[in-house]
């Protein structure tokens, strides 16, 4: 079953369960930025409107997990960047431009909050009329950003879990993923040989990380739904279902 079925509260053509269940959580996208302000990972689950996408290669990058490094280095990537950029106001932005804007917002808000209430404070989330952005920053200035629908409660814990259980475990980042074309070679961050930095915004292109993230998000969403059913039926949650068990599922 495609992951988007679980995650997307489809606006135009909603699946019946997703739209009627008030507790459904919609997750739109996920970003990781490193401490050099480079976006090292993007994943967008929501489907974009395709009318502005002229080529089939353009749509494929949106459906499949988008990795910066592969776009940046391959010829198809550079061609794509030129084509998809719509000009003028109101046009749709490319995935990379979206990431830049997200970073700009997150960075400015973080600095604003720090200025106002001291260096140990950090913003957790913000909400607009149509979406909510969750933010988590590690001590090493890695920034994790998750965009969800507005009804979602605080997801800082979830982002922390993604960092601890997925990024640190699998998020071994291929140093020269696309240059060497050694696909899906993966090095665990705990491996002393694996690089800590990602110069030039080399992407996180590890299949295990991808799969882990996908199944984590899916199981988290499913878990929430199950728990909401239980509460509606008046059953206490004593089954030991937590998001930790969702994590365990991925490992």
């Amino acid at each position, binding site marked *: 079953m495609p992951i988007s079925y679980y995650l997307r509260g*489809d606006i135009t053509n909603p699946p019946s369960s997703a739209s009627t269940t008030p507790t459904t959580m919609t997750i739109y996208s996920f970003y990781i930025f490193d401490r050099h302000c480079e976006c090292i990972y993007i994943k967008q689950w929501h489907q974009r409107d395709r009318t502005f996408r002229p080529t089939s290669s353009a749509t494929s990058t949106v459906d499949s997990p988008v990795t910066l490094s592969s776009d940046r280095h391959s010829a198809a990537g550079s061609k794509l960047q030129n084509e998809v950029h719509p000009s003028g106001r109101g046009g749709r932005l490319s995935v990379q431009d*979206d990431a830049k*804007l997200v970073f700009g917002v997150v960075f400015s808000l973080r600095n604003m909050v720090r*200025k*106002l209430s001291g260096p140990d404070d*950090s913003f*957790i989330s*913000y909400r607009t009329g*149509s*979406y909510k952005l969750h933010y988590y920053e590690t001590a090493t200035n890695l920034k994790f950003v998750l965009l969800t629908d507005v009804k979602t409660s605080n997801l800082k814990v979830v982002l922390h879990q993604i960092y601890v259980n997925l990024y640190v475990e699998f998020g071994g980042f291929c140093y020269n993923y696309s240059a060497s074309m050694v696909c899906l070679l993966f090095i665990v961050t705990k491996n002393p040989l694996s690089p800590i930095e990602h110069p030039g915004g080399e992407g996180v292109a590890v299949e295990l990380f991808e799969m882990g993230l996908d199944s984590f998000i899916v199981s988290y969403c499913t878990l929430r739904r199950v728990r909401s059913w239980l509460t509606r039926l008046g059953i206490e949650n004593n089954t030991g279902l937590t998001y930790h068990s969702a994590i365990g599922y991925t490992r």
Partner: protein
Amino acid sequence: MVILSLLILNKAGGLIFQRDFNEGLKKLSSNDYLVLAGTFHGVHAITSRISPLRDLGGGGGGGLEVLESDKFRMQCFQTLTGTKFLIFAEPNQPNVDVVVRRVYELYADYVMKNPFYQIEMPIRCEAFERNLVAYIKPKQ
């Protein structure tokens, strides 16, 4: 009710009013407040731009409304004319949107109806401040 601070931004992103009501936020220089207001104005515009629903044909849905951090919660209300009211409150403070609406009413009554007030310029209306303090202070 613990309201920490109020900022009013004009439609160009300039700071036209700032006042602290309770301890909790750092005191910044007036220049820093101006920078902050300008930055927020830009960020607010971008937040409506990066809405995922925009791509799905659902419209932008406006900019930032609530910002949460460990130590405060900021509510932003934008009027139809583009003036922004930023209210900083404690993180668990309920009904801040009601407070914002009330402050907007006071603004309409004591600032906009003041014949000496020049539009888009810094607010120096004694009646406005007096009523604002009367509304926010006694409830803490």
